[in-house]
């Protein structure tokens, strides 16, 4: 197991190194200069040069790459060109929105998907199954930002139960913060819940066809007992994979939803930073997201081993 971990961590680091090179190279070719963006239309060329020197943009590529990487290793992500604040502070600030949003959307998705998937699988071919399948089919097809628009129109403008956007910060209290995240979380969760429910159902149906479920039934377990005690845990592997993917997706992929609800999350930070050519922020946030994806994949692998003893051997 230890050796297995070592191997996984080595490949994790390799992925990160390659990813950092890719990110840095891509960012290098992005057209647009942060200094002239910041100074606007009336700035003179020497003012722009002065600012470039101040921001460290006049250094060579290689020292900048190593400066960036070694900074990240020390937890120093550099200073935002436009906001003039440490990137790490900004990112932690934004994570305070993105992380709870991703977590609550994922929780919501799981809470909706599990009963639906279990119910559909246990009543395969029945009315409940058909209804669940129809709803999830629709849920997968609806663009989440479009769904979000209607949520806003109904719940924020018509009934005014929730605010239409923005995030007041956690200092107004936990529930105040959560209230601002409710509609976005619902909009994000709907398609994810649909996908998850479908994966769970089909995975369960596959597992229910396995010989050991028949063995369990021959022992005298009812259909339902066999589902809960023997099928569910075995059906978890594809479900865990999807949950892992979804978490990474929700962390970064909420960009559009963050735009709709005007949430100060990581996605918007990237979006704004690209528009403002705040490249140091873009680089660092993308690396952070890549790190999150790789880390989640790693954790999912460990979760496999927890679910399935066959994986514990180290392959």
């Amino acid at each position, binding site marked *: 197991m230890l050796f297995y971990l070592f191997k996984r961590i080595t490949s994790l680091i390799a992925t990160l190194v390659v990813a950092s090179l890719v990110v840095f190279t891509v960012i290098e070719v992005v*057209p*647009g*200069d*942060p200094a*002239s*963006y*910041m*100074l*606007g*239309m*009336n*700035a*003179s060329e020497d*003012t722009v040069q*002065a*600012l470039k020197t101040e921001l460290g943009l006049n250094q060579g590529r290689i020292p900048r790459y190593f400066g960036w990487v070694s900074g990240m290793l020390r*937890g120093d*992500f550099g200073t935002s060109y*436009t*906001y*003039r*604040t440490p990137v*790490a502070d*900004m*990112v*932690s*600030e*934004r*994570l*305070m*929105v993105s*992380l709870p949003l991703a977590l609550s959307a994922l929780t919501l998705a799981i809470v909706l998907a599990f009963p639906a998937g279990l119910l559909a699988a246990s009543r395969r071919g029945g009315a409940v199954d058909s209804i669940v399948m129809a709803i999830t089919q629709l849920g997968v097809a609806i663009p989440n930002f479009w769904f979000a*628009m209607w949520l*806003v*129109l109904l719940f*924020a*403008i018509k009934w*005014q139960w929730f*605010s*239409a*956007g*923005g*995030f*007041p*910060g*956690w*200092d*107004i*209290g*936990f*529930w*105040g913060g959560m209230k601002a995240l409710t509609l976005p979380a619902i909009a994000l969760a709907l398609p994810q819940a649909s996908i998850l429910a479908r994966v769970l159902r089909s995975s369960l149906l596959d597992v229910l066809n396995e010989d050991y479920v028949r063995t369990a039934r021959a022992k005298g377990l009812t259909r339902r007992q066999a589902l809960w005690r023997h099928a569910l845990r075995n059906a978890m592997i594809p479900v865990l994979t999807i949950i892992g993917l979804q978490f990474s997706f929700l962390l970064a992929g909420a960009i559009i939803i963050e735009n709709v*609800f*005007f*949430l*100060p999350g990581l996605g918007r930070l990237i979006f704004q930073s*690209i*528009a*403002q*050519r705040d490249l140091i922020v873009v680089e660092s946030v993308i690396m952070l997201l890549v790190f999150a994806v790789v880390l989640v994949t790693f954790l999912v692998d460990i979760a496999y081993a927890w679910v399935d003893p066959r994986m514990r051997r180290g392959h």
Partner: protein
Amino acid sequence: MKFFTRSVTSLMLAAVFSGSALAAKTDITIGMALEPPNLDPTGGAAAAIDEVVYANIFEGLTRFGADGSVNPALASEWAIEEEGKRYVFTLQSGVKYHDGADFTAEDVKFSLDRARGEDSTNAQKGLFANITDVEVIDDTTVAVNLENPDGNLLFNLAWGDAIILDSASAETAATAPVGTGPFKFSNWVQGDRIDIERNPDYWGEAVALEKATFKFISEPTAAFAALMAGDVDAFPNYPAPENLPQLEADPRFSVVLGSTEGETILSMNNKSEALSDVRVRKAIAHAIDRQAIIDGAMFGYGTPIGSHFAPHHPSYLDLTGNSPFDQDAARALLKEAGVEGDLTLSLKLPPPAYARRGGEIIAAQLREVGIDTEIENVEWAQWLEQVFKGKDFDLTIVSHTEPLDIGIYARDDYYFQYDNPNFKELIGAFNVETDPEQRDVMLKQAQTMVSEDYVNGFLFQLAKTGVANNKIEGLWANQPTQANDLTGVSWTD
């Protein structure tokens, strides 16, 4: 993973401390479409910076009034000496910065020198180009010596880029601004809002508000919802004109239409192959139906203009008659220029709705007279790079929001590349002219010259569409500069 643990712990803390602030009538929440990138008006061009700090946190020697007039601020009075080449300012005494430091003439020298210095990062460095030196006479007297006589100096010093900073706190102004204004900075929740609070030690007349919050909502639907829900009390520059009729119908709100300094123009690259021909530029001007653009892009809010000049300015001339909507004239001009039916122009559109929506309408209008356009939507950074610096464009739409900025047509190498020596001479003379009547005549000449050369397609003056709770008074109706001056704002009950 320092920041990671920090955010988790603060998340938990946030969960523990839950309280809510009581709304009182000395609070106000102002909606703004864009969040400032930082809070140092001397180090960035973003209008949003001034919209938070101007006159609230930072003050300059002079300041703009609501009507656009230039009034005393930190300088209580001034004298013009040496035929307009030396200005001697008498400063307010007893002024302290928010951190308790004293405001002195040294700070004026520091600030102005910093703004015009070699390694200055001031976006409007040009404002100070005429200054030869700043001379501290005593603690409350400072003299500014000029190279040439300058009728614009007091006006220039009223800009947000010319505010006075303390040398001790200038470096951190971007994130923790310390000024002399009636409000001091208290909190910035990035991506959401900035809070400022009353400065009890303010040197001037005390303000009515205890606290003010600037809340950033760019999404028009969210802005609408925020107003409806009462999360925002006023939106001085409401981003979605399409919703204004609904808000106007609501008895809780009043919609205030004012003017801005934003001349919205279809800029043309006067040195591009096709557009160097004045007939083509004139054809384009005739092809444009200004009212359709104002209706289609701005939902009716905006004043048509015929030159690069704000209609509310006393020297304004209505020159829209130079380029009425006349498709036949446009086609005839194109034929004359020999590019009939065979002209494709690039049209680069920055993000604001006036540009994006207006661009689509202009593209359709130009197509009607036989000009094809290739629309490219660009972010501001790209716009600056490609259009403003690279001059790689035929057409673009942009709103020039600086006050009285017709002087840009005299600049060398400015992005639309007008380059007319007569006009340069005119502006040169205007800059050293101090007689108001002469200045008025010169401004009118300048407007006419620009209009008759069809330098750009002049579309409309951007309207200031403010929405505010009925019970708020004292907000600026017009926008002589980009600011949300809260000094005179109060609730009526």
